[in-house]
């Protein structure tokens, strides 16, 4: 498997390029942390006059948010480039991924490795520590392993969604817009416990756009919460759902690629 060293070579070049603009990099991280801290502050203000949101306290909601943020951070590091496939297709620059002797999916993916996600990592680690102290989460070995496997599952689910969105560009020459219509609001929905939404929405986030497996279902396992409409073991399925969903996304991307015709510009 010679792809792994190649990946690090390509990624290394990308990282060096990003570090050329140190001030920009620094500002982006500040911005990301501020944005997430703002979300946490909004949750705090919301719960100031009310006890709980659908049975979830402030700290439990913070945990939910941090889990979403950490797997999103990992996800954009590796897969965020897929969001902008449409610009390559419209400009005709996608062809270069097809004339080189490496797999186009792999090549496109390794074009960008976003190190700005440091902001997400700092935020989520701070929050995880804070919440663990505030509500005494007992971190046994299996819980840590469970959390790590959940994060991998969450990365695959969200990465799979980005791959599906980019695959749509093969048919419609649009992908960035689909991201803002579908994925951005869906990610926002899952920052809050899904139990507050109508049953139909909960079903969609479980079976169609499986974002519930990114943070909500696993959080119910760690925090010991009820999930109405769903069996208790549902929280353990994240890694499995992640693998299946990502394979599905990959298959869709490859079938999109096989019908790709260059714009010729």
């Amino acid at each position, binding site marked *: 498997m010679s792809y792994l060293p190649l990946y690090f070579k390509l990624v290394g070049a990308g990282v060096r390029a990003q570090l050329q603009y140190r001030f*920009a990099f620094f*500002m*982006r991280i*500040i911005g990301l942390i501020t*944005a997430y801290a703002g979300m946490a502050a909004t949750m705090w203000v*919301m719960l*100031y006059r009310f006890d709980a949101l659908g049975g979830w306290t402030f700290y439990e909601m913070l945990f939910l948010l941090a889990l979403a943020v950490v797997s999103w951070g990992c996800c954009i590091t590796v897969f965020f480039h897929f969001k902008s496939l449409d610009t390559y297709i419209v400009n005709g620059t996608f062809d270069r991924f097809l004339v080189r002797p490496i797999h186009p999916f792999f090549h496109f993916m390794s074009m960008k490795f976003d190190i700005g996600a440091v902001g997400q990592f700092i935020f989520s680690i701070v929050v995880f520590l804070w919440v663990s102290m505030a509500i005494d989460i007992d971190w046994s070995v299996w819980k840590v392993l469970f959390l790590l496997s959940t994060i991998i599952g969450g990365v695959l689910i969200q990465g799979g969604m980005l791959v599906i969105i980019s695959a749509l560009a093969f048919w419609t020459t649009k992908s960035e*817009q689909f991201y*803002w219509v579908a994925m951005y*609001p869906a990610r926002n929905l899952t920052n809050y416990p899904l139990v507050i939404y109508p049953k139909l929405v909960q079903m969609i986030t479980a079976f169609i756009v499986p974002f519930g497996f990114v943070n909500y279902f696993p959080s119910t396992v760690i925090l010991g919460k009820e999930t109405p409409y769903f069996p208790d073991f549902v929280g353990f399925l994240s890694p499995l759902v992640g693998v299946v969903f990502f394979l599905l996304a990959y298959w869709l991307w490859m079938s999109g690629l096989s019908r790709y015709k260059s714009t010729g510009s």
Partner: protein
Amino acid sequence: MFRMKLYWTFTKKAFLRSAVYRFDVLSRMGSNLIFLLMWGSIWTALYAGKESADGVTFQAMLTYIVVSQFLSGINGAGTPLWDMQEKVRTGDIALELMRPFDVPLRYLFADFGSVAFYFMFALLPVYILVFLFIDLTLPMSWETWVLFLITAFIGFLIRYCIEMSFSFLSFFLVETGGIVDIFYFAMSLLSGSVIPLWFFPDWLEKLAIYMPFQGIYYIPTSIFIGKITGVEIAFSIATQIFWLLVCYGILRFVWHKASQKVVVQGG
């Protein structure tokens, strides 16, 4: 000298351009509705079956969220902040500077056009349906409707001045990422767009009252649901006008400084 006819052309052009990018309008409407669903569900869960909290009935609170989402649809339909920054970054702004019009006004009038299109063909029909299917309160008197429209319009102008001032900051700073995020956070929380000011902790409510953001969502929406009444309305409108003048002054100042300091990035 103000040449209405010239700026009116920008309004018409922007209206027609929105008509071409119909997918954009549709997708913006879709995501607006998802956020409506989200905040509607959150407030339903917070009230948790209670009739009222802090003297505000559940029905009034739900109306508040619907109206404020509607206003955020209006406020989000114009030229986005990053679009303006992109113009500065690529140097396209130089072309605008060469032409015989005032850039802040030119974009305001263009925004009127795109907002009008979005309002007529997406927001209005969809929100009429929302009001038909969900049990919400509508203002009883026509005066309240008029006051709502006036305050919502002033709020729109305040938001425009603040957002434009921020986007012109990219004349001075090449990277504005962090500042823009702080701006969006202040805008969404302190404007009362998702949590009305009366549910804030006291110190935060005081802070929000001394900021311009409350004029964008909190004042018009509270007038709509009848939370602000009587003399308070006059006071609120006076506050709004005060902030509009201040923000307009800031916009003018930033724009004046910016246009003298055009650094075209290798344009």
